[in-house]
């Protein structure tokens, strides 16, 4: 799942090399942590958090396939 977020985030930011993701699962909930360059934070969050929300929706659709729940954390 982190690969998907990495792929999307890398296309959104100015510095794709700075995109890092981590993933851990706990009790059916998959948490993806996303780290990007400081100046790119706004790009992965979007106005009113719209981009972040879209990524979460897509992630949720993917997790639902395995009957799991998902979380996307954008780490500062």
């Amino acid at each position, binding site marked *: 799942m982190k*690969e*998907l977020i990495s*792929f*999307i985030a890398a*296309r*959104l930011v100015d510095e794709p090399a700075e995109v890092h993701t981590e993933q851990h699962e706990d009790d059916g909930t998959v948490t993806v942590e996303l780290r990007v360059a400081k100046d790119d934070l706004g790009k992965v969050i*979007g106005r*009113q958090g*719209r*981009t972040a*929300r*879209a*990524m979460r*929706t*897509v992630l*949720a*659709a*993917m997790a*639902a*396939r395995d009957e799991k729940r998902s979380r996307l954390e954008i780490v500062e």
Partner: protein
Amino acid sequence: MVQGKDFYGGTVTDAIAEACQQLSISQDALDIEILETGSSGIFGLCRKKAHIRVTKREEQQDVAEQEQAQEARTQSGQKSRQKTAEQAESADPTVRKDSGRKESGSKEDGKKTAPRSARHAEADQPPPELPSEERMAEIQEDISTMLELMGFPSTVTVILKKYTVACHISEEYEEELVGREGRTLDSLQYLLRKMTSRHLPDRIMLSLDVGTYRERRAEELKELALELAAQVREEGKTQAIPALNPSERRVVHMVLQEDKTIRSRSVGAGLFKKVLIYKPGKKKSFPRKGKGKKGQQAERTSES
């Protein structure tokens, strides 16, 4: 600067009134400093008077205002002079007319030219540059990769429909990719737009569809809208369709546009708004009625 004058009164308001009267000036033109608010005391004992100090604001302010006004006047004068000069070149009679009603004339002209030039710009704009074949192939590749990463490998086709890059995903995982009320598909479309916008020429749009979802959804909405419109016409009660995204609202408004006996409009904030369908002339009552109808409406929507 005019020096402050002190006034006393039973209350602050009284003191101010007194000041205004004595100086024969309006309260707006005074800077009022309240030194003591005064108190009525107990049983009329220990009564304190309100104490204020006023400064005439009149002069400094008036000067500033006058200056501003003058500036505005000279500016508009210059404008109209420029105008007349311009027009003098083309036709003489207009000069007299124009200078006769200087200010209003120049204002009107300003207003008129702005939208006109905007419209011109739109009409005169050359057709947008089209994305290259390679760009389209890259977009196709991006979508395929995303779907694979998601675990929903599908066939993706990308074609150009006029100025829109129309992306289509095959129907194998339609249900999963559409999501509840199309949320997943819309999110994917939004992300895709963000991901590709900097590589796409200006004014090129992008749409994403899976299977026949968009078409079906539009048809559903049209049917629902017409059904509700008929109901509104009959019963006169306002009906609502909740939580529609902009393109869905557009479908509803378009299909109801022809019908002059009912109206539709969007209410709410944010991306998803609800669309009200109502009889004209009921404006005052419908926000409340719209809300009251909501629950009932939701049931109806899910039924259809």
